[in-house]
């Protein structure tokens, strides 16, 4: 593959990111809308991505002086998810963010975020990985606190910033330990050198906690409901759909580099995964605000991913890893869809003018009648999240469970059964929402129903269709999960 292709995949969105901002600032001089500029840039990135997929045969390592980049299945998987949800978020945000102050910054940051995440996906140097990670996080600070006139939004932003900063400081400390021990930062070289390391277990713990903040592993998750609930819906979708996955990919990359040490990554991931599933479900059980509920449900879905990956890493079987990655992709689709659909209701209720307001479950009443498409899409997303077959969410959970049962180890079976029962429990909070959707009495009597613009409906419909296709034909995503699985297997040394 020509080295220019993967490089431009990173460079194009980054180089283009100032454009929406400039166009927006100088709107008198340049009669273009920032969103259109961002979309154009993303179209170019898509073209590059398609080119890359066409030529991709095997992982490629690119060396820039000492800093290595690696394009492998895992990079492609994350890049595809980033591009898909990023583009949809930009389309969606057109009417959604119209008239908000700082719109041009919004698109510029979204574009930069896309680039930073693709950079993260391809980084094969420990420190470089962190820099991309940090760039990604800083891009999201403003996006989370975008409605800065709302106190709650600021509150969410503050918590998000402080907790992210603590996490990233811990990661750098871990990097320092690795550097001190091995004298190198290249992930592949670390893996070679990590044999009889003394500092490595401590570094591993620091990485787990540091990246775990972004992953919302249980005691570190406290920022997540606030940030997801308070940011604009397009951003909630991106945060939940992609940014957590970027954290996951970063963690997997360093975990793979440290796979040789005594720390049992598989067990740790399984333990935290199960904890996340349970605590996320419990916290979601009593929520009355729909976006908060979805946020907590993300925690539990992340738990399933960790469980699957943990099983795969522990046993060295590919099916668990593939299940976990498949669930990560599916969760991107489902949660993106759910947040987009909820945002559409917010939009329809005309609640955006002063910045986004909270949406209670009761406010959803009448949705299915007035906006059948949105109601149906949200129902599908929730059922899929709850693991009702044959929707996408069931398929990936199923793969994870099968992988777990396939190990034939007693306690893993117990974990799987626990996770399966939790899947039943989760319906206890999804069903009331569906129930509300199909109730007739509209809580917003007297509010004129707004027509939903195409730009809002389109992403919802696309994601819903994708979800249905994946449910009926899970093989549709194998071209992404298969190379990513083999990349991870290779990175973990086919444990």
């Amino acid at each position, binding site marked *: 593959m020509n080295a220019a292709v993967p490089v431009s995949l990173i460079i194009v969105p980054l180089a283009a990111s100032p454009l929406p901002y400039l166009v927006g600032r100088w709107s008198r001089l340049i009669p273009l809308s920032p969103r259109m500029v961002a979309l154009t840039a993303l179209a170019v990135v898509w073209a590059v991505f398609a080119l890359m997929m066409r030529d991709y045969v095997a992982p490629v390592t690119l060396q820039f002086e000492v800093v290595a980049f690696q394009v492998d299945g895992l990079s492609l998987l994350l890049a595809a998810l980033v591009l898909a949800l990023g583009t949809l978020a930009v389309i969606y945000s057109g009417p959604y963010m119209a008239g908000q102050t700082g719109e041009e910054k919004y698109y510029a940051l979204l574009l930069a975020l896309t680039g930073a995440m693709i950079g993260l996906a391809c980084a094969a140097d420990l*420190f470089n990985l962190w*820099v991309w990670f*940090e760039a990604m996080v*800083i891009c999201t*600070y*403003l996006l989370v*606190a975008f409605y*800065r*006139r*709302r*106190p*709650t939004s*600021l*509150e*969410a*932003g*503050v*918590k998000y*910033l*402080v907790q992210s*900063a*603590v996490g*990233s*400081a811990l990661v*750098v*400390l871990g*990097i*320092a*330990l690795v*550097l*001190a021990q*091995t*004298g190198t*930062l290249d992930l592949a070289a670390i893996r070679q050198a990590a044999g009889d390391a003394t500092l490595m277990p401590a570094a591993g713990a620091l990485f787990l906690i540091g990246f775990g903040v972004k992953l919302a592993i249980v005691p570190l998750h406290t920022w997540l*409901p*606030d940030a997801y*609930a*308070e940011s604009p819906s397009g951003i909630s979708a991106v945060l939940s759909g992609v940014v957590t996955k970027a954290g996951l990919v970063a963690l997997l990359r360093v975990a793979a580099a440290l796979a040789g040490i005594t720390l049992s990554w598989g067990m740790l991931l399984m333990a935290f995964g199960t904890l996340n599933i349970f605590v996320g479900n419990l916290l979601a059980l*009593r929520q009355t605000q729909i976006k908060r509920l979805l946020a907590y449900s993300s925690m539990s879905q992340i738990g399933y991913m960790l469980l699957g990956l943990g099983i795969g890493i522990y046993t060295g079987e590919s099916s668990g890893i593939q299940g976990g990655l498949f669930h990560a992709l599916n969760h991107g689709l489902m949660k993106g869809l759910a947040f987009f659909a909820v945002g559409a209701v917010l939009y329809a209720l005309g609640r955006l003018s002063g910045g986004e307001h909270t949406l209670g479950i009761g406010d959803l009443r009448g949705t299915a009648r007035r906006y059948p498409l949105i109601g149906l899409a949200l129902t599908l997303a929730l059922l899929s999240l709850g693991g009702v077959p044959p929707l996408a969410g069931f398929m990936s959970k199923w793969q994870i469970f099968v992988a777990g049962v396939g190990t034939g180890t007693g306690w893993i079976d117990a974990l799987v059964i626990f996770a399966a029962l939790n899947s039943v429990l989760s319906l206890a909070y999804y069903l009331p929402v569906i129930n509300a959707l199909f109730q007739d009495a509209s809580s917003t009597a007297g509010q004129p129903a707004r027509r939903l613009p195409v730009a809002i409906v389109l992403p919802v419909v696309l994601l819903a269709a994708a979800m249905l296709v994946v449910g009926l034909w899970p093989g549709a995503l194998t071209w992404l999960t298969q190379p990513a699985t083999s990349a991870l297997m290779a990175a973990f040394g086919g444990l």
Partner: protein
Amino acid sequence: MTILQVAAAGALILLGIGLYGLLALRNLIKVVIALQIMVKGVVLALVAAGSLSGQINLGQSLAVTLIVADTVVAVVGLALAVQVRRRFGSLDVRELSTLRG
């Protein structure tokens, strides 16, 4: 004590003080100060690690990047603090707990 041991000890102590500050302080600007202290410790650790592995310039390079990133975080944090003061009329973290449960 060698300079490396001093640096390692300093790194951990500063990290600890910073973390303690984050747990104990309620003023948002002081929270940012605590973050800064924490990161100072990490900078020391990075440079010490570079020195230990015989690549002091590599360590320096990383440290510069970290300082820049940390400064950016501090600036954004301070900007948030200023806005919080405008909206809440206070910098007390406790006031910032309307989102819970």
